[in-house]
Each structure stands twice: as structure tokens, then as C-alpha cells.
């Protein structure tokens, strides 16, 4: 299996907002692909990065670590990072890790663009 097969990620840009949308589990196998895409995005930072998690049924601490890293990159770049459309099962790991208050979290993509 190639990296693409591990975790397909689409990317869209409009009006200073970049949306990354992974489709699949963000675990030890999928997280490196997400990490690479986030790094790419911040090589030329947008005003806002939205990570659309609506098609992520599962995330483990590798995924969470990748998002914490993303938040640090966003802070350095003076950009806003928003997590959108999180499924309940994924929300649970943010709660266990006490990180549910650290991220900007939006119900869906539309709400994310207003944050």
C-alpha cells in the first residue's frame, strides 16, 4: 500500500482559507501523510487552515500529535487553525487528552469559515 492509499487527503484553497480533508483513519499509518500535507500548507501560510474531519472515523494519539504540531505551525505563521466536523468518536480522544479546549473546533465547514 502506498502513502496515498493509507490516507487520501484533498486540498482546496479559496479567499485565504485552505481546507485539508483526510478520508480515513488518522492512526500511526495515516498520520504521516497528514503531517506532510500540513507542512506543505505552511510552506506558504494561508490566513486560515481548516482541517475537515467529517470523514475521519478514527484518530489515535499520532493523529492528535500531528494536529498539535499543526497548531504550533499556525501560531508561528500567525494563521488560524480550525478543526471542523469532528465525529463523536474522534471528539472523545480530545476529551481524554484534555485538548478539547485547546483547539478551535467548529461544527462544520461553514461555521469554520466564520471563526
Amino acid at each position, binding site marked *: *500500500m502506498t502513502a496515498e492509499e*493509507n490516507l487520501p487527503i484533498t486540498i482546496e484553497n479559496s479567499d485565504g482559507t485552505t481546507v485539508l480533508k483526510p478520508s480515513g*483513519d488518522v*492512526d*500511526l*499509518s495515516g498520520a504521516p501523510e497528514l503531517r506532510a500535507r500540513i507542512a506543505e500548507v505552511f510552506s506558504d501560510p494561508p490566513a486560515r487552515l481548516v482541517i475537515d474531519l467529517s470523514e475521519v472515523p*478514527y484518530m*489515535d*494519539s*499520532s493523529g*492528535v*500529535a*500531528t494536529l*498539535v*504540531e499543526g497548531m*504550533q505551525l499556525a501560531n508561528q505563521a500567525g494563521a488560524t487553525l480550525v478543526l471542523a466536523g*469532528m465525529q*463523536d*468518536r474522534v*471528539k*472523545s*480522544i480530545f*476529551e*481524554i*487528552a*484534555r*485538548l478539547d479546549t*485547546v483547539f478551535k*473546533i*467548529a*461544527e462544520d465547514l461553514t461555521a469554520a469559515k466564520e471563526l
Partner: protein
Amino acid sequence: MSETPPDLTIQLRSKPRLLSSVRGMVLSLTQRVGFDENACGHIALAIDEALANIIRHGYEHREEEPIHMSIWVLQGEAKGIRIMIEDEAEQVDPELIQGRDLEDVRPGGLGVHIMREIMDDCRFEKRQQSQGMRVIMEKYVNPGRPDGSSLPSSTQET
């Protein structure tokens, strides 16, 4: 109790892409044992974290190394599940296996914390061989402990 032979044993190689198969198995098994949906997901997460740590720290991302899992379905009063996961990596002091302070937000350092928070019991040991670590985790359907059901169950709203 560990002397009873396990109901299931699994050997897998240290490939990250096999983790989803183990989670699929654990989700079905825990549902069968009688855990609620939330608990099933949590147990699969704890086991995934244990395996990911072995791949990352024990085997430093080498993909062909052996991992051994043994699973017991616990019957009777203390209905639940016991999982033992063993590797053949270099031994480390079990005391050194611990996560970061949760207040100190930075990437990493969450896995062990998650395992301990989810499971009713979670202990690391050196195996009786010269190589290899072992983690034993237990979770009960109805833990008769005051803190047993204190895990955040995810909510509908943000």
C-alpha cells in the same frame, strides 16, 4: 488468573497498516463481551496506543518485527477483558514508560496517558526473557470502583 490459556492470541508484524485490523477485531469482541459502544471504542484506542508505542519506541519503526497479543474474555462477576501485549525489543525500565504532564500542551506524550485513563488496570513489565517488554491491561464491564465510570463520554454538541 493469567494461567488460564487465552481465548485468542494474535501475532502480527510491526506494520502500522495492520493496526486497523486489530481495532476491528477488538471492537467486535468487546461488543460481544457486553461493553457499551463508547467503551468498545475506548478499549480499541488503548490497544492501538500500546501497539503504536511498540512500533515507534520498541522497534523504531522497523516493520517486520513480531508483536504477540493474548486476549482473555473474563467471565463471572468481574466480566471484562484482559489483554497482554508482548514485544521482542530492547528492555527499558518500566518506570520510564510514562506520558507528559497534560497541562504542557505539545505534540506526543499522550499514548500511555490514554491507556491508563481508559483501562481499569495497565501495567508494564520486562518479560522473563532477556529481550522484550510486556503490557497487561484489564477493563471490566462494571468496574466496582468509585472512579470506574468517570471517563468522558463524547457529547453531541461542541
